């Protein structure tokens, strides 16, 4: 009479030699797979260090003084540059963008000569109004508004270049003009800017290590490993498994 136990089967307790060999192949494959995928990420996590960008050091060197007294123009420029570098990242959320815009505008008007301030303010308002119109326009109207914005921005930048220190035609200059607002606090010590150091730290600190800083085929190594190599490994594991299993089946004369 057949016993129920006779057909008991599990991956970890195979019934015969064929099963044991199969189990070994499967467990080894799973081990390689798990270590390659999760082991590498754990390694990344273990060796990473929060690494600030240079812009954060620049910001931190100037910010404490900026909230208590007027700075030299060159220090305002340092501050402005560091803020622009954060504003230019397109992962910044909307609330943080508003705070950065305010800070950039406050610095601009802190540095600008009094004789220019009212003109600058009216130009900013005009650009803002045109930008709200351009979103709803098309065809020739779109081109006309676009041309007006460019003309206004060009004039504005010519007037401010001396004290902002931004290079003409640079990306930073475009980020700068896109950030200006006519609703800004009078001083950098204003409560609405209290979160600024926190925002700068958030966007300018990254988890880096030797694995992220080493380049391989143009990639940061960890990026290459995850985006390219792991997929090659998966295909390789699958081919290896099939070849091993079919070789064994053939050798043992097993027909599926």
């Amino acid at each position: 009479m057949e016993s129920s136990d006779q057909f008991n089967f599990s991956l970890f307790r195979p019934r015969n030699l064929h099963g044991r060999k199969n189990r070994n192949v499967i467990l080894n494959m799973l081990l390689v797979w798990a270590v390659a995928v999760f082991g590498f990420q754990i390694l990344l996590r273990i060796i990473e260090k929060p690494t600030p960008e240079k812009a954060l050091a620049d910001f931190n060197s100037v910010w404490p003084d900026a909230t208590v007294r007027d700075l030299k123009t060159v220090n305002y420029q340092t501050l402005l540059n560091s803020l622009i570098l954060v504003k230019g990242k397109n992962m910044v959320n909307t609330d943080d963008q508003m705070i950065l815009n305010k800070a950039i505008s406050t610095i601009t008007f802190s540095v600008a000569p009094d004789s220019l301030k009212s003109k600058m303010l009216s130009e900013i308002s005009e650009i803002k109004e045109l930008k709200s119109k351009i979103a709803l326009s098309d065809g020739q109207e779109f081109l006309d508004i676009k041309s007006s914005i460019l003309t206004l921005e060009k004039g504005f930048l010519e007037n401010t270049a001396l004290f902002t220190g931004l290079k003409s035609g640079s990306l930073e200059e475009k980020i700068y003009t896109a950030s200006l607002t006519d609703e800004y606090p009078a001083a950098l010590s204003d409560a609405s800017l209290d979160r600024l150091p926190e925002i700068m730290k958030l966007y300018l600190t990254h988890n880096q290590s030797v694995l992220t800083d080493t380049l391989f085929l143009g990639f940061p190594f960890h990026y290459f490993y995850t985006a390219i190599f792991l997929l090659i490994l998966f295909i390789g594991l699958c081919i290896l498994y099939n070849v091993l299993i079919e070789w064994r089946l053939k050798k043992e004369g097993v027909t599926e």
Partner: protein
Amino acid sequence: MKKLYASIVIVLLVSLRLSAESLTQLEGSFKTGPAIILIATLLTFVLVGIFFRAKDPADYYAAGRKISKVGSGMAIASNWMSAASVLGMAGMMYGFGYNGLAYVVGWTGGYVLLLILMAAQIRKYGKYTAPDFIGDRYYSRDLRIVSAIFTILISFAYCVGQFGGIGLMFKWILGLDYSWAVIIGSSVVLLYTLISGMIGATKNMQIQYVIIVVSFLIPTFIMAFKFDYFWLIPQIGYGAAVTDIVQGIPAPNISNGVALLNAYGHDLSIVPSPEFAMPWDPSTGTTFFQWMAICFSLMVGTAGLPHVIQRFYVVPKVTDARWSVVWGLFFICIVYWTAPAYSSFGKLLSSNPEVGVLAKDAIVVYTAQLAGVNSLVVGLLAAGAISAAFSTVSGLLVAGASAFSHDLYVRVINPASTPRRQLQVARIGTIIMALAVTIVALLKLGLIAQLVSVAFSMAACTIFPLFLLGIWWSGSNRTGAKAGLFAGILVTTISLTYFIVGLGGGRLPGQEFISYWLNVWYFAWIGAPLAVIVNIVVSKFSAPTPLEIKRFLAEQVHN
């Protein structure tokens, strides 16, 4: 057959000629070229669907088991590569940096599990559908019914993201409102699935795969060449773009004395943005835990998705089931190696504040547009994205309809039904499901990849543990399976409840805790292991598996 291919070629050539004469407008209006390509592509699918349409239930469910391993591999890849792969994945990397790669790894690494633990054994077991296997293996009508319901729910959740993707592309091409675009796109995909069934779908999937790959690869060669990266293998060439993003490119970037510009005439320049590539960067709002949880959930979910498992019923031999996984994975990887290139180029091209942040789910098409790629090629890319969504949706609707007709209607409600009646019920099931999915897709509940990942977590918590233990442990019995399934469903329900309440602006006790640790995009990290453990523990203390099941497993499934 030759006449069919000839007519397809003629339709495509005429449409290419016509569309070449029209230019693509950038946004918000009807785009003639891409529209012609889309219509020609859909026409091709319908022709193939009619030519290879299902003639009986065996054809409808499992393509009559006539598909070769390479063909099945292409069908697996096409079936797999949905709007989430073609549109959503690049969007996740664009929006969340390195954490987006968890989707790339999760959606490919799961195939290793699928091959090693499932593919051949499922084929050897010899059932048509996932509920068929579960009902038979666990000798339980209740489990068959519950797993059939979950097969429908999983297919449903998966379809929501796809219909969203179809809507986005129809919106982009036709210049329509999103809601109308979803309705039109859904109607077309439903019509196609109804007239084709799986045999037509399987043939179509092979054609769709070619369209997806060709349309997805061509723009990356063009963009890499245009922006002076290594264009011969853009899948490697974009690595330098990633490094450029990390280190920043001061304007203007000059190649052979000519400044590199995007389609708006902006210099290809960017401020240093290490957050794009650095692991779980704080500014992306993602964490190490989330990377691991998403990756694990997607991997395990892959091995539990009914419409993926169902692909192994259509191959003639067990060895074909194994090799079709390898071919399928290879074909999938071709697209997955390429997707990050779109996010990288998209990041570079949208760095100018005048361009601004792009809509994540449309990043692939927008990137090609911003790069100034020919409108014809961008149109083909959009058609490829729609093909990807179509091929997956047809497989999902068939899987859902199979569960409804084969596992609920025939096995439970009306066992004496005729094959003709079964086919009718399958088609009615398809229509009901498509209508319901369309309604949910109109709500825009999340990004495509995120919506799809809900289906993965559901599959990982419910179907995967039943297959894993059902195949690999004869001691797993009906009571254990029911307990394990209950645990999986419980975790799923908790996660979904908190998500829905949160969407409505409400708060339940521990809302933040659950939203992070049992997030709806990755709750399987705990749900799947829990379901397995509960299944094992309860099985140990309940009536053993019947002799005939153990014998079948030992002799038929494990030689």
